[in-house]
């Protein structure tokens, strides 16, 4: 362990809390907990701009090194949300009900990209889907008009499996995460470590305590991430849909 590795504080804390646990076990459980944490909370967000190309509907997601794709949180184009393909397909009425693709809101000047005849068909509507973790599939026209604006995709990431197997010690995490999520990861890792069967450090009572704290922390972090890490930011403002 180097003197200033970002994992030092975590490893030191976990080593004294789980006496007898080898470093390799602690690192394995810490990695598993971080992975579970990011998959559940969407707290690790990444944004990518995708330039639309003619007659191309599948685009490779360029993720940072040592990360893996969890899910797409949303996509937008020219400031307008793009609906996921799963939310579209019922025709014009359902699209209008979603409140996301009303033609006169598509562009600021009032132009609509979508002909009314097209909006009856899911294939003609500008949507996105992620059928494989490496690609985003965009449906809809890829004509010159569509290529004017890139699609901004926001996705949730987690740790790449390969970084556990390498010896470099770098897990692709950003440094702020170690401080912000320190207590959550300690609780989660202790929940797993102390709950292991027949180990010198096994303590089922404390395992349940830490696991419960970790679950609560994940629930909090999930909401916090949704609200942009802003304190007490409400999901909506009163009167809902009215003037604010």
């Amino acid at each position, binding site marked *: 362990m180097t003197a200033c590795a970002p994992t030092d504080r975590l490893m030191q804390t976990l080593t004294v809390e789980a006496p007898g646990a*080898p470093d390799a076990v602690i690192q*394995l459980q810490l990695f598993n907990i971080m992975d579970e944490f990011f998959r559940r909370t969407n707290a690790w967000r990444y944004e990518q701009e995708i330039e639309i190309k003619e007659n191309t509907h599948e685009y490779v997601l360029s993720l940072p090194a040592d990360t893996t794709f969890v899910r797409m949180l949303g996509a937008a184009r020219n400031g307008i949300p793009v609906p996921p393909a799963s939310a579209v397909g019922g025709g014009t009425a359902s699209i209008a009900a979603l409140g996301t693709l009303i033609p006169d809101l598509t562009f600021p000047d009032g132009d609509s990209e979508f002909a009314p005849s097209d909006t009856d068909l899911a294939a003609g509507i500008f949507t996105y889907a992620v059928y494989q973790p490496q690609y985003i599939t965009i449906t809809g026209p890829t004509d010159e008009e569509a290529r004017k604006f890139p699609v901004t995709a926001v996705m949730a990431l987690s740790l790449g499996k390969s970084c556990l197997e390498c010896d470099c010690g770098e897990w692709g995490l950003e440094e702020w995460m170690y401080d912000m999520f320190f207590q959550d990861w300690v609780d989660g890792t202790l929940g797993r470590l102390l709950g292991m069967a027949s180990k010198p*450090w096994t303590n089922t009572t404390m395992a349940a305590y830490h696991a419960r704290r970790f679950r609560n922390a994940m629930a909090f972090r999930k909401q916090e991430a949704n609200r942009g890490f802003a304190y007490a930011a409400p999901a909506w403002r009163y009167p809902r849909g009215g003037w604010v």
Partner: protein
Amino acid sequence: MAATAALETVGQYLTESRRLLQDEFTPYRYGDDDLIDALNIGLLEARRLRADLFLPVFTIPWFDPPAADADATLRDTKVPFDPMYRQSLIYYMVGRMQLRDDEGTTDARAGALLTKFTSQLLTIAS
């Protein structure tokens, strides 16, 4: 020298085992090949009880007993085992040697040492 240098090589395991067996002078009562066999079997037992000690690939190290006397380099070969649990392997090696029907030893001592090996791997207060 770091504390982790203790019980790091095959030779150090043999020396420490002989110390507890009071078998430090030739001709030995317990040959090097027997002790290395015990070390190999102890590692198998450790793998059964504590797979986590063999992370990340779970390969069980093995040392060739017949080469022990002839090949001095084997004595310098490192035993990849967590420093916290190296002492347990010594207890296993000594206990296994004392399972023999020798004079001057008892089954109770062998049993106690083998039990200590197991309990050190599985419980914190051991």
